[in-house]
């Protein structure tokens, strides 16, 4: 009898010590998390240490970005990066980093994860900060002497920061009921 009680007690302890469910997987290793893309939130969460200047960005842009985006970010195989401010409500809107992108953190996140197109992941954090600084400066959003880092970048207010609205669909009025 005591044996049965002990087994029942042991079972109860085992069951209560474990979370419910299938208990698959294991905790991720730090390397596994590091190998993922660095997802950057609009408030700057996830931005790494380091900093970059507009001047450093100008050099980097010429070496790594200009062949696709044009020497001044005017666009070629790669997207146009400059201009277009004031065009969004016109028949021919030009959507660029300067005219359309609502958050500067997105620029850091995207360059870091996806650029250069044929060698994504090539740039180190200070280089990404520099590239971001240069593109923002090309668009007249920051001054030539401003330095981009984890503190200053989330504070940059993009011109189209308030240009996005929630999805109102279904939004098309019915002309008439069919049948």
């Amino acid at each position, binding site marked *: 009898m005591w044996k049965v009680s002990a087994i029942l007690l042991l079972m109860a302890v085992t069951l209560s010590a474990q*979370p*419910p*469910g*299938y*208990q*698959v*997987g*294991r*905790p*991720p*290793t730090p390397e*596994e*998390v590091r190998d*993922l*893309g660095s*997802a*950057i*939130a*609009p*408030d700057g*969460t996830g931005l790494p240490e380091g900093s970059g200047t507009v001047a450093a960005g100008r050099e980097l842009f010429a070496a790594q970005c200009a062949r696709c985006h044009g020497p001044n970010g005017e666009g070629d*195989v790669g997207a146009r990066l400059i201009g277009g401010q004031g065009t*969004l*409500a016109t*028949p021919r*809107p030009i*959507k660029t*980093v300067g005219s*359309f*992108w*609502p*958050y500067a*953190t*997105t620029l850091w*996140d*995207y360059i870091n*994860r*996806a650029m250069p*197109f044929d060698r*994504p*992941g090539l740039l180190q954090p200070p280089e990404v900060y520099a590239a971001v600084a240069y593109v923002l400066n090309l668009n007249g959003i920051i001054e030539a002497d401003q330095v981009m880092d984890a503190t200053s970048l989330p504070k940059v207010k993009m011109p189209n920061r308030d*240009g*996005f*609205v*929630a*999805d*109102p*669909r*279904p*939004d*098309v*009025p*019915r*002309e008439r*009921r*069919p*049948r």
Partner: protein
Amino acid sequence: MKHGRPSRRQLLQIGAAVGGSLLAGRKTSALETNPRKLGEPLGPYSERSPFEKAVRWRRESKTPETGSSFTPLHDSVGTATPSALHYERHHSGIPTIDPARHRLIIHGMVDRPLSLSMTDIRRLPSVTRLLVLECGGNSAGEWAASGADVQRSYGLVSGSEWTGVALSLLLAEAGAQPRASWVIAEGADACRMMRSIPLATALESSMLAYGQNGEAMRPSQGYPLRLINPGWEGNTNVKWLHSLKLTDQPYMARDETSKYSDLMPDGKARIFTYAMEAKSVITFPSGGQTLPAHGLYELTGLAWSGRGRIDRVEVTTNGGRTWVQAALQEPRLPIALTRFRLAWRFDGQDALIASRAIDETGYVQPTRAALIAARGTNSIYHYNGIKFWSVRSDGTVTNVES
């Protein structure tokens, strides 16, 4: 049947007319085997007949690793899309991933961060759903009414059976914290494509798929693991999924701000426009095809809605003056391609043909004019206007320019 369908005899006559040219070339066909000689031996994995030529179409590009390839809807029958013809949209090429080394990391605002192997994931209870998947930018050319044929203007939609694990099950394993309200999903392609997904919706219906049409999904569809958000624009269905990070805010990724947002005439852009609304298109007869003779045909096409079942599809053959109800292939599954059919006699008169879908929410597929009146012509994504094809007296079928 309310509207009458062609008899078996009539359908055979149609078949004979279409097949006649094939029979005429019988003796000269180099691909055909002698019917009295032994055929090919049994093989491990089938190829289609050498006579079948339907392929995806894609625009020539200096960067072929990014772009879209379009399903040949004009050659489609039934409701399933072969995995090999499923539409594709890539941003930095198709990675080759060893499933034995692939891991899904669930982290961020969870009680128990998890690293899962594919073996772990396949051990869990599975779910299987037939679903339509449509690119948010499908039919973008229709804002300018420029689609010459159904493949190029509607081919970024496909239907597959997906098998995987309910996302809610995995998030229960990881223990989502009360403050978590978004899931940041990231793929293992070179550009680490990322999207923000509202947690509440993801818990309701999202799944992590590893199977497509009865086998492991194709590399181009996300092998070995893909996020499936039923009814949402294709881009949110992150392929090669390797990270789910729970957060208390959307991350405003490039592909949900700069792209996949819908610019309105007032200069404001709609963001997080996930749902694909009800839509339909006639696949036969459609642009570029030719009716070989006068007589009875089966007019057919596909309808779907990201918000549920297709309730009915109506067809006009007189430019929208009158509409008749088409027959729908059963079973009509929610958020799945639904085939519609209508017997139609082509007597050599010019005809403007179109279909409109009504889904179970009562939503009626709008006209192109109504859509443009509401959204202008610069929103790119989520075009679902009624599509007219022009059937000319000589049997040729063309796009209707605006």
